[in-house]
């Protein structure tokens, strides 16, 4: 049986006051050191991405808040979640924060 491949997560953040300004960041567990790869696995599991994907898009009240689009490829199974406004689920926030940190790291080289 073929290796289903490692976990990878991509975040695309759009919205906010500035029109058309989009940030993207990706994390590939295969390219991380062991501790970071385990932490990414933990964050994805805690977010319960399949359950969120079934509810996507998840929108709430508010305006000028960011929209987050997450794509998770976990061993060949792909899930896509779109959340925005004040509706970002608590269980998803740590994963978004981890990817936003990566966005800032990539932006600053």
């Amino acid at each position, binding site marked *: 049986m073929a290796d289903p491949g490692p976990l990878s997560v991509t975040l695309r953040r759009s*919205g*906010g006051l500035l029109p058309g300004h989009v940030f993207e960041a990706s994390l590939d567990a295969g390219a991380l050191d062991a501790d970071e790869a385990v932490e990414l696995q933990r964050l994805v599991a805690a977010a319960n991405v399949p359950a969120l994907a079934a509810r996507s898009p998840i929108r*709430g009240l508010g*305006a*000028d808040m*960011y929209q987050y689009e997450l794509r998770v490829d976990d061993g060949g199974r792909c899930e896509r979640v779109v959340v925005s406004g004040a509706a970002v689920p608590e269980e998803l926030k740590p994963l978004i924060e981890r990817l936003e940190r990566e966005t800032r790291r990539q932006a600053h080289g």
Partner: protein
Amino acid sequence: MRPSCRHPVHCLVPDYVLREVAKRGGDAQRERALDTLGRSTTLRSARTQAEARRAAIGPSRSATAALRIPKVNRIIRDAGGSEDLGAAVVRREGDADTGDPAVDEAFEYFGATWDFFFEVFARDSIDGAGMTLDGVVHYGRDFDNAFWDGDQMVFGDGSGRLFTRLTQSLSVCAHELGHGVIQYDGPLVYQGESGALNEHIADAFGAMVDQWHHDQTVEAADWLVGKEILGEGVQGKALRSLKEPGTAYDDDLLGKDPQPAHMDDFVRTHDDNGGVHLNSGIPNRAFYEIASRLGGYSWEHAGRVLYATLGNPQLRPTVGFRRFARLNLAVANQLYGVASREAQAVEGAWEAVGVDL
């Protein structure tokens, strides 16, 4: 034809007074006030709150004298670089300046925006019923954004690269507060064309508050939103231009302002809730067109028609540009008369941006 009213005095009294009567009056008074409140959206769409207020402060002054005089109520919280929306309150109504620019700017500009809505549209705060204006400043670290979260207005300090302290801009503060008004009066679903209309109306409120605060006519105003917040070195004049969407900035870091000004350039995208901050350029330009065709002060006619359109019971939460434009014209016809100068300005403006009526 104007709607009939069984209680002429109440028909002249704004909603906030009716709510006080409902709370404090006797049974008969309460029943009449609640009955009239129930029909207030029809009243508002027909004659606008501004006319109700003008009437209320005229012949019926004595009827309102015994009731609470609406006044602004503000609280400002300092998140101190955290994302805590329940952070401690550092300034309340009646407190002196704190010396913290973000706190004092938010406090002052909330006041200026409340004054605009009360003086121009006879509206008592975000919900029309005296809601406390709750602001959070110093939100997050290097946070290049401000937002309305459904209850509060939240402001970052900016990274300095894209934006500086967002509370510096009256139009940005008014924009965020305006989203609250839209939530209570519309609402307009924050997605696709209705989301772009939500953004447009918040921009129009932002521009009008800025113009009203500085006593600027349509011709004298710059029609910019957020001209105070661009980071040092950013090539641009503001966050957005209602007069010339797509020209606010052209910068290596920010890119070029991508807002369209005409339906020919309507952007289809999944980002940003369907491009709500992009396609708002089209109705923004239409609003500028209406105001510029009529001259004078933007809030007197163009703003009056827009506010009455927002409060019209026929406005659907998922309204698109075309239906909104048609309602905008119907409201102008109702307020000023069919084929009036104002109605012609509305019709011509939407045609100019490519929205077929």
